[in-house]
């Protein structure tokens, strides 16, 4: 399998490193409009570099295009790769809204290529273990859930695109979509969404979001996300069930801790890429899974369709934030 990555920011460079660890899979080219950045990565792995996906497709024979671009550029590039007959792995969130997402799914279906989305939380061992326990029924029915993600400060990236809410969708679409996807995967469909954000109430980099989700199963979830600095990036969850509690806090549940000494001169760069100190990191597992599915001709765990469900929840939350009213999701969605 020959892979080319487009977009070599935080995620693109993470993926480039991951491909080095995957057997029968070769990173052959990378593309980024920032040529310097592109060359640095290309030299590190001995691959060719291009200024755009178009150029990369014109000169390379690829099986897979991995799209690690800012969210508003996902559709255009996924459709271009599909039209060229390449399988596509695309970072989450799938798209800025359902319409765009459906078009992307449709483009890949028409072209007969597979689309996989980077909902990497499904490959975090602590989250997988939680899902296993909940599904085993050992703790009985889930009553209430709390999840948290963030606290690492506002992400700095190319052209400050995270701060452009038309491009990124803000914290709700960009970050806590991880929890929407995980919860939907674990508990099933969401019935009703109500949400509040500091967006519009404060300097827009101080975004903090609190979401109330009601699942078809009856479970009530409180999903919290933050782009504030709350002592560094972290994640938490609690499942309160009929027969017990299941809790996790990334700050406590770690087998490895080290402390950077501060001179006071550092500045934060890039977006937090959460890490679990495990035998194989979740980003590598997610890509290995995708490439494996292509070889075996299977549907990946997170297809475009699956990712649409998480986009729906995020869009409903954004609508609720805007209108101040609860948003009911129809159960007839795809």
């Amino acid at each position, binding site marked *: 399998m020959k892979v080319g990555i487009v977009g070599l920011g935080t995620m693109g460079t993470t993926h480039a490193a991951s491909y080095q660890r995957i057997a029968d899979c070769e990173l052959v080219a990378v593309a980024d409009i920032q040529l310097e950045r592109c060359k640095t990565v290309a030299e590190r792995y001995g691959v060719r570099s291009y200024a755009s996906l178009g150029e990369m497709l014109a000169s390379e024979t690829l099986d897979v295009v991995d799209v690690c671009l800012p969210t508003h550029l996902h559709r255009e590039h996924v459709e271009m790769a599909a039209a060229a007959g390449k399988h596509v792995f695309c970072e989450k969130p799938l798209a800025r809204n359902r319409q765009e997402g459906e078009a992307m799914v449709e483009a890949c279906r028409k072209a007969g290529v597979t689309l996989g989305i980077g909902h990497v939380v499904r490959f975090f061992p602590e989250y997988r273990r939680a899902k296993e326990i909940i599904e085993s029924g050992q703790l009985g029915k889930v*009553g*209430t859930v709390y999840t948290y993600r963030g606290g690492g400060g506002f992400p700095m990236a190319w052209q400050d695109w995270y701060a452009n809410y038309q491009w990124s969708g803000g914290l709700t679409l960009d970050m806590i979509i991880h929890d929407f996807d995980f919860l939907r995967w674990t508990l099933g469909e969401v019935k009703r969404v109500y949400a509040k954000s500091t967006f519009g109430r404060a300097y827009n980099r101080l975004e*903090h979001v609190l979401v109330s989700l009601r699942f078809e199963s009856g479970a009530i*979830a409180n999903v919290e996300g933050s782009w504030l600095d709350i002592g560094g990036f972290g994640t938490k969850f609690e499942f309160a069930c009929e027969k017990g509690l299941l809790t996790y806090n990334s700050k406590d549940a770690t087998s490895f801790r080290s402390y950077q000494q501060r001179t006071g001169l550092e500045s934060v760069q890039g977006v937090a890429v959460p890490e679990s100190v495990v035998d194989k990191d979740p980003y590598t597992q997610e890509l290995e899974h995708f490439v494996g599915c292509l070889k075996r001709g299977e549907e990946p765990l997170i297809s475009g369709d699956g990712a649409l469900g998480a986009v729906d929840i995020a869009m409903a939350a954004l609508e609720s934030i805007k209108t101040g009213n*609860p948003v009911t999701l129809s159960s007839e969605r795809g």
Partner: protein
Amino acid sequence: MKLGIMSFAHMHAYSYGDVIRQLSGVELVGVADLDQERGKQAADQLGTTYYSSYEELLKTKIDGVIITAANRDHRELTEMAAAAGKHILCEKPIATTLEDARAMEKVTREAGVKFQMAFPCRYIPAVHRLKAQYDSGSLGRLLAIRSTNHGRMPGGFFIDPEAAGGGAVIDHTVHLVDLVRWVFQTEFREVYCEMDRSFHDIPTEDCGLLTLELANGAFMTLDPSWSRPDCFYTWGDLYMQVVGTEMVTEVDMMRQSLERISFDRPNYQWEFWGANSDYYLVKEFVESFREDREPSITAQDGIRALEVALGAYESARTGRPVKIGLA
């Protein structure tokens, strides 16, 4: 100063009885409970006299009473105590309806007796630190709060919808609502609530999630669920994460605990070593009538907190956010 306790339906009565004994110049003269067995046992435990009727207790030379009956009975007992000229410390929530709560405010005002709500969380040292942070401006403008007041399922009158006025939501909403009103000197404007009965086979809801709008432009979620298992290592929690423009601050009352692991069951328990806020609550009550001044936590505070809890039930019924304070 002489005090009496009216009813042991609410378990906080035992803690109030204990702190009375620690306060100098304050004496627990007697307790009354219509449940003879419970009342006698409580009197024994607290080393005081048992009265089988409220009237008898009110005839003694006490200055004030602590009302720890079922929520629905707060009004009747308040009226009795006010008529007897006794000052009142009333357990939360103030009542089960706004009509009752307003009647209580009126009758105590007219009788010229002090009426204080039992919101002991105002005396948690970490809450004082938070208030100081906010008052000094170092927290900045308030943006958002995530809060939880989890507990175990208490049983007793708490799960009788008539006697309690609801379940977990009315029981656990009022503490945090009162704290936020007091710390940030603001009111609640709107409430949205999801609630359900998911953990126990009881007649009331046992879990929920409130999403609230504050008059100062901030918002808040509050989880009042009885979602801690019976074997949980402490009674529950009182937690607030406060997001300001300049600071994010967490208040986690129960974290001031030792972790105790033993061979015997329960194997793992938290031993709380923080300040006893009930002590300061009862002290404030006694000082209010000793110094003949308004208690710092009034019937109005009780009414405001009840409005939010009742709004939550209406929201859960209608599926809409509900405006608060229009009734």
